[in-house]
């Protein structure tokens, strides 16, 4: 296949789609399927077959459309009319949609989700621009929306050096957590000497509460593959690996299929699009270890070993897989590549803030009215995300904190709701952008318990290689457990704070170095809750049961004095 064939394919597919009077796009991503999406798609098909509309009406299974908690959702595209979106569709409603709306009548009002609400209007879809609009299992659908034309353009019109320069100019930064400038990393790998080089897409997505990468891989797999191929061309690699979390079997299956489809058409494999560039991609399936998201551990895992980190430098860009220069990028980062090549670096740099360009996908979850997957321009405020897009706190609760960055991140309290969401601002608040989990908590969440939750996670997931992390996380978890069950003393809080600093400064990899973050950030903004647990044996949020008695290591007299110093208990100790 060459460039002209690609354009032909796109045109043929567009014509085919226009041949349908009406297209019904059904979300077939996991959240919608688990709220009954399969029955809805079946009902649509049945009704269409019953009315013999097969030739004019098409039902397409797509990826996620965004408002997952309102699923199953269905988009109706009628020739010459704006798209309409239905929420909470039942099989019954599906049949009525066909009877009424598809047949030229009025939309089914009760299930209509207006598209002019802030949930949609405040979003800016770059990476997810195809998600929910194409069938992820059909290459033609992707090509019809301009897919693989960025690769074709890069191969014909640009040198690898120019591709790197374009990505540098766009200001794209890594979406996997640390926010390292992507173009610079590409250029490092491009310049690194090596007989062979590799590109790795990091689809491990270990952060609990985050599912951006899964959705992208499931909803638009070719987008990731195209990004990898462009990266391979730019750095001089002929082999790529995409490392998918073991918990995401559908994503892995779709990627495998997409790779085979692209190889059959000469869009991957050897002599891509009649050029001299060869690039193969293989899928590697993770086996359930959070630390494998860390780049050196990920490489060990791809090579079939225990996923334990090793010290950097040397960085993967110098010595990676099998000792060769290796480019590692997050899946979402790679999802930005094709649009940058297509629309140009200036267009991309026009979105977002000065230092954080482009958009970011967040998995908005927790105590908000509408949870789901959103893509917003960098620099949007937290308030806009939580209250405009998410629709605020349900059940009359009040906003208490937003947790970003998962176990490496922190909690942002209400007084900072107007902070712009970008790499620097979040870091200044003691949290991080992280990979994009955004969990909203209301006044019924206990922040000490939240810190304990993340510490338990880090304790379980520590690979055990270095002592500060292996032992430190257990110790810190134990201290937090004592605080939440009522048996902690003020000395324990001091020990906890000391341990935080020690583990942060002496651990080998990012897991240990950032494990104390949730504790430090909750201590920074919610210290009174820690004190209430310890001194008043009370959980302000009413979460902890506090049924244990403190084990006093000091003489009672001293302890009483310490407590009295705080003024909250009047010198008496039980």
């Amino acid at each position, binding site marked *: 296949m060459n460039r002209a064939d690609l354009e032909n394919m796109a045109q043929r597919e567009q014509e085919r789609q226009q041949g349908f009077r009406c297209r019904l796009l059904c979300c077939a991503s996991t959240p919608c399927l*688990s709220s009954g999406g399969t029955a809805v798609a079946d009902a649509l098909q049945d009704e269409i077959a019953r009315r013999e509309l097969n030739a004019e009406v098409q039902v397409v299974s797509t990826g996620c459309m965004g408002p997952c908690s309102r699923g199953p959702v269905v988009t109706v595209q009628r020739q010459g009319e704006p798209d309409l979106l239905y929420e909470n569709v039942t099989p019954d409603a599906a049949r009525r949609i066909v009877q009424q709306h598809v047949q030229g009548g009025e939309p089914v009002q009760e299930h209509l989700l207006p598209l002019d609400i802030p949930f949609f209007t405040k979003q800016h879809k770059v990476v997810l621009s195809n998600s929910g609009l194409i069938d992820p299992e059909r290459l033609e659908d992707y090509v019809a929306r301009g897919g693989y034309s960025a690769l074709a353009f890069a191969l014909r019109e640009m040198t690898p050096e120019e591709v790197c320069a374009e990505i540098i100019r766009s200001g794209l930064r890594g979406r996997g957590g640390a926010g390292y400038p992507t173009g610079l990393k590409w250029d490092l790998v491009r310049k690194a000497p090596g007989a062979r080089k590799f590109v790795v897409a990091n689809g491990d997505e270990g952060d609990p509460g985050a599912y951006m990468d899964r959705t992208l891989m499931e909803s638009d797999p070719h987008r990731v593959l195209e990004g990898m191929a462009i990266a391979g061309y730019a750095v001089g690699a002929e082999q790529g690996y995409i490392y998918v979390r073991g*918990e995401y079997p559908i994503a892995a299956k779709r990627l495998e299929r997409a790779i085979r489809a692209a190889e059959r058409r000469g869009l991957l494999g050897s002599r891509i699009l009649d050029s001299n560039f060869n690039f193969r991609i293989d899928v590697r399936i993770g086996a*359930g270890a959070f630390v494998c998201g860390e780049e050196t551990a990920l490489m060990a895992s791809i090579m079939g070993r*225990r996923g334990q980190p090793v010290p950097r430098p040397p960085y993967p860009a110098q010595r990676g897989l099998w000792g060769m220069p290796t480019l590692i990028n997050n899946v979402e980062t790679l999802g930005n590549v094709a649009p940058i090549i297509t629309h140009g670096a200036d267009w991309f740099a026009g979105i977002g803030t000065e230092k954080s360009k482009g958009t970011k996908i967040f998995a908005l979850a927790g105590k908000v009215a509408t*949870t789901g997957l959103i893509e917003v321009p960098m620099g949007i405020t937290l308030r806009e995300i939580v209250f405009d897009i998410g629709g605020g706190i349900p059940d009359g609760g009040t906003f208490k904190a937003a947790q970003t960055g998962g176990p490496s991140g922190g909690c942002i309290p209400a007084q900072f709701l107007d902070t712009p969401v970008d790499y620097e601002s979040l870091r200044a608040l003691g949290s991080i952008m992280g990979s994009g*989990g955004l*969990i909203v908590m209301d006044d019924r969440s206990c922040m000490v318990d939240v810190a304990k939750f993340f510490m338990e996670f880090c304790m379980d997931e520590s690979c055990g290689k270095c002592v500060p992390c292996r032992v430190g996380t257990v110790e810190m978890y134990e201290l937090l457990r004592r605080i939440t069950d009522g048996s902690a003393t003020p000395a324990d809080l001091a020990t906890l704070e000391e341990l935080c600093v020690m583990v942060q400064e002496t651990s080998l990899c990012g897991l240990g170095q950032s494990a104390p973050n949730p504790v430090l950030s909750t201590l920074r903004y919610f210290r009174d809750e820690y004190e209430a647990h310890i001194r008043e044996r009370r959980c302000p949020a009413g979460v902890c049961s506090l049924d244990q008695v403190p084990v006093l290591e000091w003489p009672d007299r001293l302890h009483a004095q310490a407590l009295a110093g705080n003024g909250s208990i009047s010198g008496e100790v039980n």
Partner: protein
Amino acid sequence: MAARPTAKRSPRRDDGGEHPSGDPRFKLIDRTLKRFQYQQDALIEVLHTAQEAFGFLEEDLLIYVARQLKLPLSWVYGVATFYHFFSLKPQGEHTCIVCMGTACYVKRAAEIVASLQAEFGVEPGQTTPDGKLSVATARCLGSCGLAPVIVVDGEVLGRETPETTLSRLKALLDTSQPEPMAG
């Protein structure tokens, strides 16, 4: 768990990878081994296949894989125990996985785990003594919008409460016939 059999029992790997037991499931493993040309790097892929075929990784399987890849058994064992996904114990007839990711935690998934503990007497990671039900926890199943989320026998279910989960499982365990063992 020393590297007991590797050196002595496999002088060469020219037996075409056939397992002496003739168990057809070994064919699946052999196919994966061949696909990766017996490269040691493919260990995790091979273990995935083995676990898929047999349900869990018995010692015999680990020994077989170690021999085929010419790796010390301690190495294979080290990898198999490092990853949460691999199980060295048999699983129950039915499985219930409760998501304990952040979104599910905020929506009180812990109460579901506690109710399972109270009702069936199993901690996460355990199987009931009659082998009917295995309970496990997971780190985010990627359906956070529907938190709290559980997976029963592969089916993802959202917006659960302790009551709905319990009644679901009880119905499942009541109807399941005493079947002959799978495989």
